[in-house]
């Protein structure tokens, strides 16, 4: 009856603890059924009734001593039954308000005694004993029996449990009785539910069939396909698993409409609705309703698929009744019950007969099958593997969800952060997925401070607990036993038990979860607060293993265990400190845990652990322990350092010099966590400076030549992050780090390492000296080879590096010769924004070479770059526009090429509406190049380029000013554009540009002014704004172009003045 109780009975919300049974009609009928079973058991099965329960059923009763009659030993308010077990203990014991009963005979008697209160008694009993079968038969037997296939006959069942005790036969019989009752209850529930039926299986089947026939076949089909998720049909015509049938669901369909995405549909008695995607049985999450409930399939499809709605009416439905009659057919409760259930109730009756004739069957070793086995299998007995799979699913869906949140956060406008993440996301792993915790307002703030990009960052997803304690592995019961001793033992027994527990494979999920599920985690955590060093050591040794499990980590934090572990870091016992730190390193893999560590002062304590002398030639035993402690401390800090606030806390606790000292250790297992922490922290400016000034670059470079891939990876990644600074780049070169970096490129099979190495090369090659050095090692040739068939995180860095290399003319030819141009152009079709930024940069850099440009043109690269202007990312837009400049410059017949791009000019003009200065500057630069072709300039003018450029003139950004002035200068060459610029008020701001300190701005402004000055009105404006004086100043420049432009402008102004004067004089 365990199953019907957990599945069918309607418990009040607090169903995990001691929930109450709701007083619904269904529960009442269930109770009555159980009551009559208990009442009659004593008389019907006298032999089995004598069986003593493994554990007593206990509940608080309303019965008083006075209610008991003969056969009972009554003293004061306490009552004991005269009936006793083999050891002389009474089978019934009442000490108000608790009563405990240990056999069915006593239970029956009690129910009789209770008279009118018997329903309440049974209810109280059930509420307080949620797993009566386990209590009655003992957990081991119950699990064996429930785990068995229902096909097995009684004899083999007896066989199975024979070694569990002498009275196994009775137990099996008892179990079968209980199971029979369970079946009865379940089918009663189903009947009850069926009573409320509106749709029924037959109606659904008819509709599906008709849809299948008329919709999918033929020319004017309205649906692509319609399929059931399951081919198995239960006796009542339903295809849904029994425990879903309890909810009134009959079957699931996967429908592929012609015009929209695939629909997953649940057909239930209450109507038809979309679900979360039931594909296979056993995935609880998929059953949730995600749409409104519709009357039938057709209405649902009409609302979802316009194509269906349109065509369904025009179709000739010969096979199908008109909708009105169909509706009548669907709403047919009585009919449904008769049609839906008869077979199963017949089966039920038949089985009852068989139950009654059990004795004879038993003797003949009867071959009676008790139930169609899918029902039993499906009733919550998910296999471990299936469950694991499901967890994976739920995890990934959780991640998707949080990714969504992440995106929203980005959208909320943290542009600076986004920029930072571009470089971060080029690291191995996906961008960190964070989660806004809703429980406390302050937490969401904290969430923003996360910076991790580690792939091991994990989510706090809700986790489904195993619902029944059946089908558990033997380890579960052994661990349960051990935990029992752990609870009740003195320190000797505790240590023994802990040691025994360590012998289990604690890395295995079943064991990990078993420890949690039997309450072992609480005990282990409690032990941490005792004074017993040995117990603490034992407990931590287990915790450090099982904390590899995500759920265990969360449970430890939830139980407040992390605080205790942090406290242990202060212990004088070194073993304890090391173990505690190691455990923290496992637990602190998620944000909440890391915050807890920080809030309880854990960071400071962990930093303290680092204090040791790691690089002595010979260590005493004591010093060796210190080093081990430090290593564990570094491991813990590594985990913790994934939170920005923790990085800050480590810095404040003066952790950086200590890490620097540990970095000199000769041992890999020490170096990995230390460098791991450093590279994690190097996302902070303060750390980058410290790493450089504390002289850690030298050690990092040294370890690049280690033969441990992981260490190499972290070193490279630290250099990657630090090499943003010029000094660091120079230091890497000085310490001869470039060669090992270049040689890491050969380890192409380890993608994480490759990503880190290429990242470091990219950043280092920002310094030209480094590029030259890299060339000695033929790094570029290798890099170009890595442009294909690599994961994105590698590609981003490789392309970035190629872009940097390509600034040296000789390298452009190398790239071409190695076939890099084609690879680069191919990458232009990608979607990764960080990658696109780098690819466009690289393509732009290559395009400065005429031969390269020819290849790019041939591969239609310009069109691809141009289309990236449509990319939503401003960074991609601007880098694409920058790349266009050399392309247009160097292309043969550039004007024709640009014109051939349909809509391209309009697109570029429209980007002048952007609010991003970098985009504007790049677009202006591109326009300046395009405008060199008169025809194109005409088109640009038609698209309104003049007012848009004029609108931007008030900017103070020198970079934008320079390119804007250049664009204006070039756009003046067409028609009345000069005058239009003047009318749009672009002249006066341009004059102000001459006050800028940027020489480049002066040059392009002077050119623009020279062009504009060809319009007399502009001359007047310029003159009014005092342009002459700065222009005369510019004439003294060394730049010929500048001299010429300034002089030309002044000349135009002068000529106008002259003409004006002449006009005055001669008229």
């Amino acid at each position: 009856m365990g199953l019907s109780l957990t599945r069918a009975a309607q418990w009040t919300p607090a169903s995990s603890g001691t929930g109450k049974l709701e007083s619904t009609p269904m529960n009442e009928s269930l109770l009555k059924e159980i009551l009559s079973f208990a009442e009659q058991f004593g008389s019907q099965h006298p032999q089995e009734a004598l069986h003593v329960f493994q554990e007593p059923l206990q509940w608080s009763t309303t019965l008083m001593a006075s209610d008991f009659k003969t056969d009972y030993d009554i003293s004061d308010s306490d009552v004991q039954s005269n009936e006793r077990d083999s050891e002389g203990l009474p089978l019934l014991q009442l000490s108000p308000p608790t009563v405990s009963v240990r056999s069915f005979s006593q239970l029956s008697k009690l129910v009789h005694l209770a008279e009118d209160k018997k329903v309440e008694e049974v209810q109280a009993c059930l509420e307080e004993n949620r797993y009566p079968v386990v209590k009655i038969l003992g957990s081991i037997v119950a699990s064996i029996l429930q785990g068995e296939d229902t096909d097995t006959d009684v004899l083999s069942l007896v066989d199975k449990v024979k070694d569990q005790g002498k009275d196994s036969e009775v137990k099996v019989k008892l179990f079968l009785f209980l199971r029979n009752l369970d079946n009865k209850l379940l089918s009663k529930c189903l009947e009850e539910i069926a009573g409320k039926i509106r749709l029924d299986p037959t109606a659904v089947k008819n509709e599906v069939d008709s849809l299948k026939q008329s919709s999918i076949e033929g020319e004017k089909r309205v649906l692509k396909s319609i399929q059931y998720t399951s081919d198995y049909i239960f006796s009542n015509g339903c295809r849904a698993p029994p425990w879903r049938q309890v909810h009134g669901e009959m079957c699931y369909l996967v429908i592929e409409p012609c015009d929209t995405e695939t629909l997953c549909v649940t057909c239930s008695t209450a109507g038809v609705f979309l679900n979360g995607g039931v594909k296979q049985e056993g995935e609880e999450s998929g059953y949730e309703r995600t749409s409104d409930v519709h009357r039938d399939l057709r209405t649902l499809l009409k609302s979802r698929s316009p194509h269906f709605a349109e065509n369904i009416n025009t179709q000739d439905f010969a096979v199908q009744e008109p909708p009105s009659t169909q509706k009548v057919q669907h709403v047919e409760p009585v009919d449904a019950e008769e049609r839906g259930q008869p077979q199963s109730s017949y089966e039920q009756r038949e089985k009852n007969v068989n139950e009654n004739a059990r004795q004879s069957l038993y003797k003949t070793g009867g071959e009676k099958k008790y139930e169609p086995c899918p029902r039993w299998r499906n009733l919550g007995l998910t296999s471990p593997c299936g469950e694991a799979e499901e967890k994976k699913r739920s995890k990934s869906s959780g991640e998707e969800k949080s990714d969504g949140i992440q995106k929203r956060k980005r959208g909320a406008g943290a542009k600076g952060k986004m920029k930072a993440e571009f470089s971060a996301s080029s690291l191995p792993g996906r961008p960190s997925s964070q989660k806004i915790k809703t429980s406390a307002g302050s937490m969401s703030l904290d969430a923003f401070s996360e910076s991790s990009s580690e792939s091991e960052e994990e989510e706090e997803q809700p986790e489904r607990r195993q619902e029944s304690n059946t089908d558990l592995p033997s380890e579960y019961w052994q661990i349960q036993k051990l935990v029992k001793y752990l609870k009740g033992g003195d320190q000797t027994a505790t240590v023994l038990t802990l040691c025994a527990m360590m012998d289990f494979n604690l890395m295995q999920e079943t064991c990990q979860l078993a420890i949690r599920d039997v309450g072992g985690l609480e005990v282990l955590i409690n032990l941490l607060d005792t004074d017993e060093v040995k117990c603490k050591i034992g407990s931590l040794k287990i915790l450090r293993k099982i904390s590899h499990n995500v759920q265990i980590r969360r449970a430890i934090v939830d139980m407040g265990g992390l605080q205790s572990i942090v406290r242990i870091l202060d212990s004088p016992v070194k073993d304890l400190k090391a173990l505690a730190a190691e455990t923290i390193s496992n637990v602190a893999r998620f944000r909440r845990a890391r915050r807890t560590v920080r809030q309880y002062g854990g960071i400071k304590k962990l930093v303290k652990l680092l204090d040791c002398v790691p690089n002595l030639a010979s260590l005493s035993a004591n010093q060796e322990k210190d080093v081990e402690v430090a290593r564990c401390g570094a491991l813990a800090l590594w985990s913790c350092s994934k939170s920005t606030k923790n990085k800050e806390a480590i810095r404040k606790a003066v952790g950086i010099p200590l890490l620097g000292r540990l970095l000199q250790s000769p041992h890999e297992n020490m170096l990995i966590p230390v460098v791991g922490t450093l590279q994690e922290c190097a996302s902070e400016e303060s750390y980058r400076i410290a790493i450089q000034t504390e002289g850690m670059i030298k050690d990092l470079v040294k370890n690049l030549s280690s033969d441990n891939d992981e260490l190499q990876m972290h070193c490279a990644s630290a250099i990657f992050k630090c090499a943003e600074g010029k000094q660091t780049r120079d230091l890497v070169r000085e310490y001869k780090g470039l060669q090992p970096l270049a040689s890491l490129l050969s380890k192409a099979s380890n993608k994480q390492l490759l990503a880190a190495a290429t990242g470091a090369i990219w950043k280092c090659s920002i310094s030209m000296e480094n590029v030259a050095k890299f060339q000695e090692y033929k790094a570029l040739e290798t890099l170009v080879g890595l442009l294909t068939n690599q994961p994105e995180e590698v590609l981003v860095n490789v392309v970035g590096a190629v872009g940097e290399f390509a600034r040296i003319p000789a390298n452009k030819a190398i790239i071409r010769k190695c076939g890099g141009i084609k690879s680069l152009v191919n990458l232009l079709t990608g979607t990764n924004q960080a990658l696109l930024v780098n690819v466009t940069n690289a393509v732009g850099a290559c395009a400065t070479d005429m031969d390269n440009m020819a290849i790019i043109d041939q591969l239609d690269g310009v069109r691809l770059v141009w289309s990236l202007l449509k990319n939503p990312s401003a960074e991609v837009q601007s880098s694409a526009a920058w790349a266009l400049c050399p392309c247009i410059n160097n292309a043969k017949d550039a004007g024709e090429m640009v014109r051939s791009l349909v809509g391209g000019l309009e697109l570029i003009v429209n980007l002048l509406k952007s609010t991003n200065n970098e985009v504007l500057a790049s677009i202006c630069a591109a326009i300046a190049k395009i405008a060199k072709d008169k025809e194109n300039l005409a088109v640009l003018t038609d698209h309104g380029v003049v007012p848009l450029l004029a609108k931007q003139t008030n900017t103070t950004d020198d970079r934008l000013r320079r390119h804007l002035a250049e664009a204006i200068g070039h756009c003046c060459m067409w028609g009345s554009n000069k005058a239009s610029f003047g009318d749009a008020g672009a002249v006066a701001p341009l004059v102000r540009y001459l006050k800028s300190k940027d020489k480049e701005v002066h040059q392009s402004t002077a050119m623009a002014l020279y062009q504009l000055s060809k319009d007399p009105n502009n001359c007047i404006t310029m003159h009014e704004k005092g342009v002459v004086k700065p222009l005369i100043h510019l004439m003294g420049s060394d730049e010929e172009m500048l001299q010429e432009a300034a002089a030309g402008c002044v000349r135009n102004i002068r000529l106008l003045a002259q003409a004006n004067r002449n006009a005055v004089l001669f008229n």
Partner: protein
Amino acid sequence: MSEMSAMNRKVIQTLAETISKHAEHFNKTEVEFLIREFNVLLGEQTVSGRAVPGLDRGTFRSILHNIFGMTDDMIMDGVFRTFDKDNDSFVSMKEWVEGLSVFLRGTLEEQIKYCFHVYDLNGDNYVSREEMFHMLKNSLIRQPTEEDPDEGIKDLVEITLKKMDYDHDGRLSFTDFEKSVREENLLLDID
């Protein structure tokens, strides 16, 4: 009196010198203090005035209880047995210093030997099931609902044997013990 103590001091010093050669984990000064402590303890014990060769079982047990906080009778007897190397039911001065040397400062190896001796109640060089049962008898808190509290103990013994009995002869030999302790230090002074 001062003469007496002066002489005493001298005696103690020579004694200390000889004994500290055997007790390798103490230096001479420490041995000297231990001898003094021994004499004080011995002095408390000689109520009858009769000279005794050393600390008797009762005194020794009260020392273990008061100073080292031991509570288990069985273990305390075992410790006494281990200290009393010549089996004369008294812990002599030499035995006292040497015993403490291992007890407090011993290397892992010495402590393994020492502990095994403590657990080997009958001195047959094996810790049998029964001996183990005796030692663990009080280690589980009796729960009223428990059918048979001894069941738990038996089970615990089985668990221990399963873990430590490498040669599967149903009892712990010294080799078994040593091997398991080397594998897991925690097992040292439990069983």
